[in-house]
């Protein structure tokens, strides 16, 4: 490994109290009535989830990661910057990653301002990822999915201009006009906080990352496809004059550690099953609003459908996605292998899923920090040499 492994702790902050009759709903996104959301329970969950991320910081994770989704039990982070702001004073060391608000879902100056605020408040600990947003977000927001990609590009350009050029500047574009682009504050990190593009491997998102030299956080992309897209991205980035570093390819990994493999599976699988069967369950229509995908991409995805969003077969899933469940040794072995194979030095661990209780999350975080991270750090050649 060319550089030390980095460990991020990602939290989806789900609303873990599904209605009793939830199996009757085809989708737990977009149209599941918010009458099922009990704010009292929500309050307790926020308190608990924030504690879990603070614990991750205390235990030595390098980063805490939050993201954005709307109209769903999957995530209570419709406004992730507010979550991030709550984490700033409670954490001291970990980077705070907002991965993130779709650049085209909010006014770009406003997003530039919020991220800059977080960066300044946290003393330069912010990292940002720009997703296009799932199809579901477009049913929830008044944003046209058919022009989403061009608007995303324009928004991104404005945000970077706001961060890097001395204001006031101007922008006269297709979707936005800025006569005085001059946001206060500016980010603390120069030229700007580290950025990633979030995507599922479509050529468009890969090209954006390549063009800007940003990292690429792929989500719910099968392993083999992840591998391919990293190769494509490295090559494309070179064509734009960028050499991407291993930490720019975070591996989204479902992680659960217990004393033994068997115990880990027993404790974890019910929650992972709930995650894939219920929390991500939605309809093809919500996944692909009109114009959101090119016709070619639609065909590719329709052909490969049912791998997720409503089904659970652990063997199939374990072949498709990065899922490390087991003893510290097992988990460390898998992560080390995947990092090597992918040329990545960045493990983005999902340490809590679905209705996993607090004690399991604390146990998982603690065992990972105390027994997995040291194992992986030790195996790094340059560390060994230094010691």
């Amino acid at each position: 490994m060319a550089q030390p492994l980095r460990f991020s702790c990602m939290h989806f902050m789900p609303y873990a109290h599904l209605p009793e009759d939830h199996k009757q709903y085809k989708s737990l996104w977009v149209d599941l009535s918010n009458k099922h959301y009990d704010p009292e329970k929500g309050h307790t969950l926020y308190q608990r989830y924030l504690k879990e991320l603070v614990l991750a910081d205390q235990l030595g994770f390098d980063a805490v990661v939050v993201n954005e989704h709307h109209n769903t039990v999957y995530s209570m982070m419709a406004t992730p910057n507010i979550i991030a702001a709550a984490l700033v004073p409670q954490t001291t060391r970990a980077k705070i990653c907002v991965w993130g608000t779709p650049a085209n879902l909010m006014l770009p100056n406003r997003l530039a301002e919020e991220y800059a605020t977080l960066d300044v408040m946290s003393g330069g600990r912010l990292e940002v990822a720009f997703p296009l947003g799932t199809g579901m977000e477009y049913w929830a927001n008044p944003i046209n999915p058919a022009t989403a990609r061009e608007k995303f590009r324009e928004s991104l350009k404005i945000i970077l201009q706001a961060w890097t050029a001395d204001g006031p500047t101007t922008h006269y574009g297709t979707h936005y006009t800025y006569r005085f682009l001059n946001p206060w504050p500016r980010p603390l990190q120069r030229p700007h906080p580290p950025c990633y593009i979030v995507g599922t491997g479509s050529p468009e998102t890969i090209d954006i990352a390549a063009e800007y030299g940003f990292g690429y956080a792929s989500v719910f992309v099968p392993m083999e496809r992840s591998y391919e897209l990293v190769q494509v991205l490295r090559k494309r980035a070179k064509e734009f004059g960028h050499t991407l570093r291993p930490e720019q390819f975070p591996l989204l990994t479902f992680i659960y550690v217990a004393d033994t493999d068997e115990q880990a599976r027993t404790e974890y699988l019910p929650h992972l099953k709930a995650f894939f069967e219920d929390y991500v369950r939605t309809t093809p229509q919500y996944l692909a609003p009109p114009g959101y995908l090119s016709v070619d991409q639609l065909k590719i995805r329709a052909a490969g459908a049912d791998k997720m969003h409503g089904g659970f077969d652990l063997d199939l899933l374990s072949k498709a996605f990065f899922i490390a469940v087991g003893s510290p040794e097992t988990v460390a072995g898998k992560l080390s292998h995947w990092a090597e194979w992918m040329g990545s030095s960045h493990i983005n661990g999902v340490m809590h899923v679905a209705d996993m209780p607090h004690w399991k999350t604390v146990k998982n975080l603690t065992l990972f920090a105390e027994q997995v991270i040291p194992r992986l750090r030790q195996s790094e050649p340059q560390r060994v040499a230094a010691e």
Partner: protein
Amino acid sequence: MAKLKRDELTVDGVRTVMYSAGSGEPVVFFHGAGTVDGFDFLEPWADRFRVIAAYHPGFGESGDDPTFTELHDYVMHYLELFDALKLGKVNLVGLSLGGWLAAKFVSEHNDRVKKLALIAPAGIIDPKHPMMDVIKVPGDQIPGLLVSNFEVLKKRLPEKPDLDFIADRYRESGTVARLLWEHPVQPKFMRYLHRIKVPTMIVWGDEDKIIPVQHTDTWRKLIPHADIKIYQGAGHLVHLEKPEAADAIAKFLG
């Protein structure tokens, strides 16, 4: 009865596929937000007219133009097409979204149109009888909403939709989203409907589930000279369900 003949031409850079038959005064059909209903109802008319039906950009066999983001782009496209075909005055027939387009076209270009016939046209804002927001409706439910007698449409649909069929429909819905996602209704359209001066006929099925037949009241107010015919027991595709509706249009056109 003449069969429709396929032609392919480039209109302002967009590959445009056009079906036509017959000779005489041109009758141009503007299809709606989907294209499975077909153009063949025009064939009997070819005995008396030169019937022309093109796929709009982004629909059916025509190419895409992602710069098309509003209905006005389609008005411009058809002006180009009419010029290319050297058509003088045309008779316009518009179905649903195509009816909205045809009415908009005429409100801006009375001089290019002889007569206007609208089949359950979209575009009217009636808060008491809102048009169905078809963008929200899952694709597999749409065919059932288009007609009262499903047999009429069934023969035009694949027995089991394959990936290509689904992808074609997805592409068309994407084209519609470009135009209408943010503003499925547009008050400005009604604002200028009174400018339609040409003889106008409007036909509607009283069981239309997509656009309520009550919209005829607003059309009557905005175009007082329009001849409005309502057919009992027919849905949105009234011209297919009730051949007499199509006959009435042909008769009206001359």
